[in-house]
């Protein structure tokens, strides 16, 4: 049984409430930092832990914190990114629903470390029930003296507010989120300046994912070094994985980084294998934007090693034969799923969610969707595959924000690994409308590449 740091008390009845959370040892981290640590000590502890941003980019949290500018007389802000919109990802919803106080405790610890006195939790508007849960939790914490003025007599003041989004994937991009929080359209800003210099209202700001902030609690309680002992290489600690698709037991799992992908999919402790006794065809391991891999590349790397749930192992082989940890949105496809249709579906998503500011993303995402729809509905030409490749190549890296890359990668990976399925769709349009290409050779073991 893997250890749990974030979801330790998930099964305790009433853990949603302050009272039960506190009885289980909650808010110890707040007491510890306010009574025994300086803000810099907290930053140092988080650096030691090796914690990497859990929202998708995987940037070291402690380092991000240390970039925060601290000019005199200017407020600093901590903004929690609870926009959770990457298809395949629903861990933050789970955490906010079931243990809202873990997030609040992390917010207090992190705000103290950064010297913020007003912090916002930006939650996507569709999660109205979670917004209500957090608001209630804030009231409880405030009533118990853990928020407000002079918290626990330490002289430290903090208010936390919850801000709803209103339906826009792009607001998960940190500068779009800040624009949205300022009451504007969610157009990503042109960087530099980065939020650490000029963020919310032009003030120095740190934006962190829900899970990253919650992870500061065990880091403070146990010490950064203890946290860093879990995991492998630069993938330290535990990670929440959202498992969806054709699995026996989809859901949110807390894993030690370093677990093998095979164990995660097939063991009863986690996903319990592929639903309905079917075989696995492909996996998108980190949310819809990361490359899809066929079974034979997700279970083993190109050089024949077992693939592990770590930032490094999932990325092993680069985009040629690897993928990415992303946000931990693990989507499993069984043998009856159509990769072409799914790629079209994802590209429709990115087309729908493009903010429209910069030309390659605004125009290119819609173009890709149309070409993919044409192939999916049996009207494709073989030249469309090259065209798609060219469009995605020309979006990637040329846009204001990473949404362009996020739209390009799934198309590129689907063509890279499933080109024969695309060709089959084009060459057998009538068959493609009535049946799927099936598992084909996608689970056949590959000869390891010996370098």
């Amino acid at each position, binding site marked *: 049984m893997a250890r749990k740091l974030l979801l330790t008390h998930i099964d305790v009845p009433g853990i949603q409430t302050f009272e039960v959370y506190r009885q289980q040892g909650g808010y110890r981290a707040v007491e510890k930092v306010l009574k025994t640590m300086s803000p810099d000590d907290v930053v140092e502890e988080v650096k030691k832990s090796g914690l990497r941003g859990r929202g998708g980019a995987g940037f070291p949290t402690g380092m991000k914190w240390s970039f925060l500018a601290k000019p005199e007389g200017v*407020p600093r802000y901590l903004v929690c990114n609870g926009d*959770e*919109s*990457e*298809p*395949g*990802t*629903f861990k*933050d*919803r789970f955490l906010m629903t079931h243990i809202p106080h873990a997030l609040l405790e992390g917010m207090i610890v992190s705000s103290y470390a950064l010297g913020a006195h*007003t912090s916002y939790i930006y939650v*996507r*508007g*569709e*999660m*109205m*029930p979670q917004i*209500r849960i957090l608001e209630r939790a804030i009231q409880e914490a405030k009533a118990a003296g853990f928020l407000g003025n002079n918290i626990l007599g330490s002289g430290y003041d903090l208010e936390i*507010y919850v*801000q*709803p*989004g*209103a*339906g*826009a*994937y792009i607001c998960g991009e940190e500068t779009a989120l800040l624009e*949205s*929080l*300022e*009451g*504007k*359209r*969610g157009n990503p800003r042109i960087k530099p300046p980065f939020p650490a210099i000029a963020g919310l*209202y032009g003030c120095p700001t740190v934006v962190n994912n829900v899970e990253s902030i919650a992870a500061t609690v065990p880091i403070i309680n146990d010490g950064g070094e203890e946290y860093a002992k879990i995991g492998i290489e630069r993938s330290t600690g535990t990670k929440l994985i*959202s*498992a*969806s*698709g*054709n699995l026996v037991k*989809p*859901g*949110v799992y807390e894993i030690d980084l370093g677990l093998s992908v095979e164990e995660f999919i097939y063991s009863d402790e986690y996903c319990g294998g592929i639903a309905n006794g079917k075989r696995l065809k492909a996996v998108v391991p980190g949310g*819809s934007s990361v490359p899809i891999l066929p079974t034979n590349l997700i279970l083993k790397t190109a050089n024949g090693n077992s693939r592990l749930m770590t930032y490094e192992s999932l990325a092993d082989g680069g985009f040629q034969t690897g993928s990415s940890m992303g946000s931990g*949105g693990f*989507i499993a*496809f*069984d043998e009856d*799923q159509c990769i072409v*249709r*799914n790629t079209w*579906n*994802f590209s429709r*998503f990115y087309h*729908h*969610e493009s*903010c429209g500011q910069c030309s390659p993303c605004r125009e290119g995402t819609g173009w890709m969707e149309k070409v993919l729809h044409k192939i999916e509905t049996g009207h494709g030409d073989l030249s469309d595959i090259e065209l798609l490749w060219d469009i995605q190549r020309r979006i990637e890296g040329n846009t204001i924000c990473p949404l362009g890359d996020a739209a390009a990668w799934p198309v590129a990976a689907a063509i890279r690994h499933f080109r024969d399925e695309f060709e089959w769709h084009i060459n057998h349009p009538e068959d493609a409308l009535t049946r799927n290409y099936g598992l084909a050779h996608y689970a056949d073991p590959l000869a390891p590449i010996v370098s």
Partner: protein
Amino acid sequence: MLSVKHNEIVEFSSTLLDQFAEVVARFPEGRQKSALLPILHLVQAEFGWLSPDAMNKVAGYLGIEPIEVYEVATFYTMYLLQPQGKYVLEVCRTGPCCLVGAERIMTHLENKLGVKEGEVTADGLFSWRGVECLAACGYGPVLQIGPEYTFYENLTEASVDQLIDDLSSKTN
């Protein structure tokens, strides 16, 4: 230009204005525009959609130009800019939910309600639409119903029928 066919003159109640004030107080002085998204949610919950008049009044309340409200309201997909059915059923249509049958659920909904996506049933009770990922991929197919965005998970044709029947009888 977007076709703005409907309008509805609204009056903000004192309860609603109190809620507005509570939201505005969360932000620093002079940053009241930050309250725009939450206030639009409150207005939509009250009136069912955002009419041009309602948006103009929000602009007046926050001391910003009406176009600033229109720009925001048309950017975010949760804001409804046309009158809708009493219950707007929003079904997730993105990849992971489609792997477990979301498309089937939408077809079923269309047949059951007898209206196409975006249309309102004759009794004014229901409209439905496909929406992008709702971050509940492990519990798909899912749908939500505003204004509190109540969630219905692991949908089947039977559970959708049951839901529609329940909502219909609740209203009768």
